[in-house]
Structures are given as C-alpha cells and as structure tokens.
C-alpha cells in the first residue's frame, strides 16, 4: 500500500508539472492543482470498480492523499504569493489600452481564434471595442470595454438608487418553503392574502418568489402536468 501512496505523490507532482508546461489553453475553468486532483481521483476511483482483484484500500488511500494534498496546496496558495505563481501562474494582459500584445499571445500559445471566441462568449464581436483583456489563471478571458461602450449605469448618470433585497423562492412546485418565507420576514398570512388576491391555492403555484419589500412573482402550474 505504501507503493500506492508514493506513486500517488509522484503522479500528482508530475501532472501539475505537465499541466503548467501545457499552459493555460488546456486548462479550462479549474486551477491546475484542482484539475490534477479531479483527473486523478476520477481515474483512481474507476480502477477498483473495473478490477475486482484490486483491494479497495489501494484506491481509498490515494484518493484521501490527493484530497489532503489539494488542501495543503490551497492553504499554501492562500499564504504565499510565490507559491501561487508557481502552482497557478498569473493573469496575463493580452490587450492593453486597446492594443493587442501579440508577444504575450505567442507565449500563451493563444491564437486569434481563441481570443475572438473568448470575446464572443462575453458578447463582444468587435476586438476594437476592448480596452483591456486579461487571460486569467484558469484560462478564461476577462474583458474591460472602452469607456464609451460600457453600459450606462445609474452611477454614470449620477442617479441615486436604493439597494434591493434578494428575492427568495417561497413556493416551489406547489410546496411552501417555510424557511425562505421567514427569511423574507413575510408571514403565512401575507402569503395567503396574496394567493387569494390572485385566485390561487398553494398547490396551484409552480413557482413563487418574494422579497423583504413584499414584491412577488408567481408562475402558476400548467393544469395538466407539473415538472
């Protein structure tokens, strides 16, 4: 069993190293250490299912070890900036002041199609709209639009607005969610009154949300079936 543990440590280090070498393009949404843990855990967990000759403990031990390593790594990353740059790298600016940094793109092995695809996922179809674009450590692109193209906000208009409380689901598929209702500080009396006003019973409602200010939204159930 010690062999399994030691092999797990060696493989963990090796895959992190390999993913850092591969670069951000391959990583997707997870941080490198998280991805390593996910891949290894799923594979290790599959082996004893496939091979019944293998004792379960040979799979449990490395999985626990990997979770432990992931926790240790995340604690180290929390405390050390240097460790963070080793394990997760750092964000790279590829568009600065509207100018595309082709050198950084080459370093990241990020081609124009990748960039345009990343921008399109942010609903940006023209590269000239971008003031800053940053490739994050998880491989995603963060974008800051040029000031003239940024959405108009009350702040820009110098309009004062009040913060709104978050709505909670109070009825889901005909079932009352007491906890959410009390979180909204609205009583059952209020709910019954609202339902009565709209001509529904609780069991007729597919979805109902409400907030602390008493604002609500109701979707009644279809008469024939419920989801």
């Amino acid at each position, binding site marked *: 069993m010690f062999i399994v543990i030691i092999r797990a440590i060696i493989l963990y280090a090796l895959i992190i190293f390999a993913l850092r070498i591969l670069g951000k393009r391959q990583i997707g949404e997870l941080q490198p250490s998280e991805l390593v843990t996910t891949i290894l855990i799923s594979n290790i967990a599959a082996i004893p299912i496939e091979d019944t*000759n293998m004792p379960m403990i040979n799979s449990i031990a490395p999985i626990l070890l990997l979770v432990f390593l992931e926790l240790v790594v995340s604690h180290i990353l929390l405390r050390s900036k240097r460790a963070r740059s080793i394990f997760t790298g750092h964000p790279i600016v590829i568009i600065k002041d509207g100018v595309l940094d082709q050198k950084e793109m080459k370093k990241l092995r990020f081609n124009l199609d990748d960039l345009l695809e990343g921008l399109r996922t942010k609903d940006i179809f023209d590269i000239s709209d971008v003031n800053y674009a940053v490739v994050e450590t998880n491989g995603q692109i963060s974008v800051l639009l040029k000031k003239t193209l940024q959405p108009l906000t009350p702040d820009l208009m110098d309009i004062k607005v009040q913060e709104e409380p978050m709505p909670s689901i109070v009825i889901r598929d005909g079932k009352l969610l007491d906890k959410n209702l009390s979180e909204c500080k609205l009583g059952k009396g209020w709910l019954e009154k609202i339902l009565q006003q709209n001509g529904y019973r609780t069991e007729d409602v597919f979805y109902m949300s409400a907030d602390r200010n008493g604002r609500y939204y109701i979707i009644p159930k279809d008469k024939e079936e419920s989801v």
Partner: protein
Amino acid sequence: MKRLIVMSISLAAMLALGGYSIWVTNQTCEEISSLLEDAKDAAIAEEYERAMELSEALAVVWEEKTVKLAAFSNHADIDKMTEAISSLRSLILFEEQAEFCANIDTTKMLMEDILEYQIPTLRNLL
C-alpha cells in the same frame, strides 16, 4: 483549517494502515513459510503422514489469514496461493514427493511475492 486537520488524521490513519498491512503480510509470510519448510522436510524424510498433517494445517492457517490479506493484497495473488496450497494435500496423498517439494517451493515464492508487493522498494515504485 478544520478540513486540513480531518484530512491529516485520515492520512495518518492510512499511513498506519499501510504499516499494519506490511506487518500482517510479514507475519503471515513467516508463519506460512515455516509450515511449508516443515512439510518439505517431512516429505524429504518420507514421513508422509506428518507431511499430510502439515499440509492440512497449512490450508487451515491460510484460510484464516486470507480474511485480513484480502484487504491489502491483490485478490488474484491470494487465489493463486490458495490453489497452490490446496494441491499439496493431493500430491502427498499419492506420495508424489518430487512434485510436492516443487510445489512447496512455488508456494513459498508466491507468498514472498505477496509480501514483496507491499514493501515500497525502488523496484516496486518504478
């Protein structure tokens, strides 16, 4: 921090279990090897009845040990050992001395392989 402590305890338990697995396998290996040696000596000395008794004792001891061994060792290796041990009784019953001794050696090798599989040597790691 709480999760780290929980995982540290789990890991310590796993390491302890790793050490325990080596200890259990080593004890089993010693016990089985000693019985196999005795059975071989008895067969060489043509004390077939004693060899038969030892082979039967061996089968009983092995059956008991497999319960713990199955948790740490490859089940196919354990099955191979069971097969080898169970063949010993028939061989000594028909006084097949040479084959009996050869099977004793094979069984000893299989047992040592099971133990060796547990030890983190460089050969095993690579």
